[in-house]
């Protein structure tokens, strides 16, 4: 190479470097341009990271946490919740009566309006429940409404007339709900989005009443009754909502709007936070957690989160249909090491399904970390030393932290059992689709409680739960969960849960890994956002302080 070429090369290098520096400078906002969060504080717009692109906002069709974060802004159910204690507080229902035996609830609705000016009626609720219970819509959460009299029968088609189901509009403003049995936490239960109302006229104008491909829940056609209305929706970028002037409690809503940013990479999100682009992150990248904890950064929020990080197993495929194999897989994971070294936010290792101290319940049964026993079980199942073991893969939605955990477990199985598994990542919506269709061997799965009661974890693995994609079902287990629901004595009830959990731990339809912590960064000017077990933050209490 001649010296002329070398000079050329150097010049190119310099030009690239200069370009890079300029780009960085431009990205950092040209020095004094107001940062999005400062502007947000002025305009009272909350900018928050919200994970990957949501699969939708139709309350009957979603299961994810990021979808729920948006639904909470757009829709309000009969009840709402206290931002600190999560206790039920009046929402669409102004007051209610409960019958002596706790099975009949009569809700008196307030004069509330939908965002298009229609008034919210008791019929809206009854029809929404009908929609959620329609088999044709394929809601994963239909089972949430099974406590209604004839709810399950209607779902299964055994009862065809919805009038026989325990949800009746006595008049425009009075809704009567009749339950099969009394549920002590019923008012919290109906805080879940499967019990939220939908605007029936909009639903019917955009496709079938109970058709999964209905297009009403999109920008332009969506009508809600929550504190905010849908304003803008750019796929894979931002979904923004603005204050709803027609909301019944609009005076106490302090924000003018919320922008939900959908960023699939946690690193990008954390950088956006530091660059002043968002007030709150969705999560934190694993390598950064220990540093924020060590520095005692006041912006770090790290609180117990009522959820279980687990691997659900497809029990219908060869290999995983054997209980001993499933047990061996579960027993050979060193959970202590994972929470100490990989996740690092102070999570608790999980050996069963219900997180510790959930409404006074602590699991007794647990899967042991016992490698020799795991090897023995695997050999007994016909795969001594992992020989001839089918090649499975772990499916997870694209996120760095899921990959790190999967790699750690992959290696533990390789070293402890001598089996090789592959890793496969999919984008959130594709992942949800694969999971529901059962198109997986082992799937990463985070189950977050829908209300603070062990039941939200126990009924996950019942045979009729749309969220149980393992193909595993046990009549005995199902009947125990139902028996627990019907039991009025709290102690006996928890005792039945213990028995049911024993079955889960023995049958291993899923591998528990750890109990979540909710770990994220919040700008200190964000007020009214309190750490709580469900990580629910009713937005009408949130405000930005200048």
């Amino acid at each position: 190479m001649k010296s002329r070429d070398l000079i050329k090369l150097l010049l190119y290098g310099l030009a690239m470097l200069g370009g890079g520096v300029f780009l960085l400078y431009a990205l950092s906002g040209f020095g004094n341009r107001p940062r999005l969060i400062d502007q947000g504080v002025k305009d009272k717009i909350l900018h928050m990271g919200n994970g990957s692109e949501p699969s939708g906002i139709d309350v009957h069709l979603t299961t994810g946490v990021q979808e729920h974060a948006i639904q909470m802004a757009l829709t309000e159910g009969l009840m709402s919740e206290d931002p600190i204690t999560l206790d039920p507080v009046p929402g669409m229902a102004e007051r209610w009566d409960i019958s002596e035996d706790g099975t009949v609830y009569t809700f008196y609705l307030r004069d509330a309006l939908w965002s298009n000016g229609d008034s919210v009626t008791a019929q809206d609720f009854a029809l929404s429940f009908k929609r959620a219970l329609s088999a044709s819509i394929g809601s994963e959460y239909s089972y949430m409404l099974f406590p209604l009299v004839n709810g399950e029968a209607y779902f299964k088609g055994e009862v065809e007339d919805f009038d026989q189901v325990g949800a009746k509009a006595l008049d425009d403003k009075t809704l009567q709900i009749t339950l099969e049995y009394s549920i002590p936490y019923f008012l919290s239960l109906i805080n879940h989005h499967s019990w939220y109302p939908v605007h029936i006229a909009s639903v019917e104008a955009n496709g079938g009443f109970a058709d999964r491909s209905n297009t009403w829940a999109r920008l332009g056609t969506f009508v809600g009754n929550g504190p905010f209305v849908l304003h803008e929706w750019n796929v894979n970028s931002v979904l923004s909502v603005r204050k709803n002037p027609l909301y019944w409690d609009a005076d106490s809503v302090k924000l003018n709007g919320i922008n939900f940013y959908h960023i699939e990479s946690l690193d990008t999100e954390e950088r956006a936070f530091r660059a002043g682009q968002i007030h709150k992150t969705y999560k934190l990248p694993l390598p950064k957690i220990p540093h924020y904890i060590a520095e005692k950064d006041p912006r770090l929020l790290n609180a117990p989160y009522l959820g279980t990080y687990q691997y659900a197993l497809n029990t219908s495929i060869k290999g995983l249909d054997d209980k001993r194999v499933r047990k061996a897989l579960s027993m050979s994971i060193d959970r202590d090491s994972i929470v100490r070294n990989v996740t690092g936010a102070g999570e608790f290792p999980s050996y069963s399904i219900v997180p510790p101290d959930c409404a006074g319940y602590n699991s007794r049964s647990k899967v042991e970390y016992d490698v020799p026993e795991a090897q023995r079980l695997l050999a007994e199942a016909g795969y001594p030393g992992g020989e001839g073991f089918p090649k499975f893969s772990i499916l997870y939605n694209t996120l760095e932290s899921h990959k790190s955990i999967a790699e750690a477990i992959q290696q533990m199985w390789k070293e402890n059992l001598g089996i090789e598994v592959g890793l496969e990542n999919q984008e959130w919506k594709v992942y949800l689709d694969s999971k529901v269709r059962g198109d997986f061997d082992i799937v990463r799965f985070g189950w977050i409680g829908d209300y603070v009661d062990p039941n939200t974890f126990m009924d996950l693995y019942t045979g009729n739960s749309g969220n149980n994609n393992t193909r595993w079902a046990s009549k005995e287990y199902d009947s125990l969960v139902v028996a627990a629901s019907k039991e009025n004595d709290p102690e006996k009830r928890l005792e039945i849960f213990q028995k049911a959990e024993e079955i889960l731990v023995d049958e291993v339809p899923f591998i528990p890994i750890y109990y979540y912590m909710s770990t994220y960064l919040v700008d200190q000017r964000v007020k009214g956002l309190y750490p709580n077990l469900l990580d629910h933050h009713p937005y009408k209490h949130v405000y930005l302080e200048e």
Partner: protein
Amino acid sequence: MSDIADISNSQEAIDLAQAEKGASLWQDSWRRLRKNHLAVSGGAILLVTGFICLLGIWVGQPHDAQNLDLGATAPSAEHWLGTDMLGRDLLSRVLFGGRISLMVGLAATFVSLVIGVIYGTLSGYIGGKVDAVMMRIVDILYTIPFIIFVILLMVFFGRNLFLIFAAIGAVEWLTMARIVRGQVLSVKNEEFIEAARALGLSQARIIFRHMIPNVIGPVIVYATLTVPAVMLLEAVLSFLGLGVQAPATSWGALIKEGADAMEEYPWMLLFPGGTLAISLFCLNFLGDGLRDALDVRRSKD
């Protein structure tokens, strides 16, 4: 006469003698390449790197051995390049990744070379309507967006290292075919081809014995430039999470991991990134040197 005696002692005379002996194109190029120190050292570094990556299987720790309690540690006597967050030795991972990256680079280049040379030669040699049709096919294939093409392949056939080779090779041969066709067109009407025809040689023999060796210079040059391009493509795919499957890794995948943790554990980005950068530099220097060496028209030195 005394003039000639003087010259015979000088370098030129030796060159002259060699020329009379009939130094082949290859010897000539080799001599010119050797003078280009950047290209030679580039090639040498590449060879050494490849060699170390291959040997890395036997020495050191396996690339997937974890030590969760150790976690990410800075370079030390025990782990020369440090460890990643799962406590895996970064040196063995860089070496393992190098094997995949270099393999992808070489294999995909080979695929593109074979398809491109045959296709381009046929197109240029036959000419006429066949040429027009074949080149329009190339034009159409050019319009397929690469990343979407690869994602489609992954969706239909699942993730697989050979698929990555095939996908990259299938895209890279297009330019190769065009270059070869251009060369063939320019060589086609030279006298030695005429002579071969006059001798009544078969088409196949003309193509493989006379045509291809005469167009091979630019092809080799382009191939050396394709290798880094392919390695970068593989890095792009791995960066997007479409590349090799864990626990296997490649330089691209390592860089992605390193970029995620670059503020906490800078060595995780520095070493794989540096290695990839050096290798790409070397390949480019080598390619540049080969271009100069094999270009007959530039052989004034």
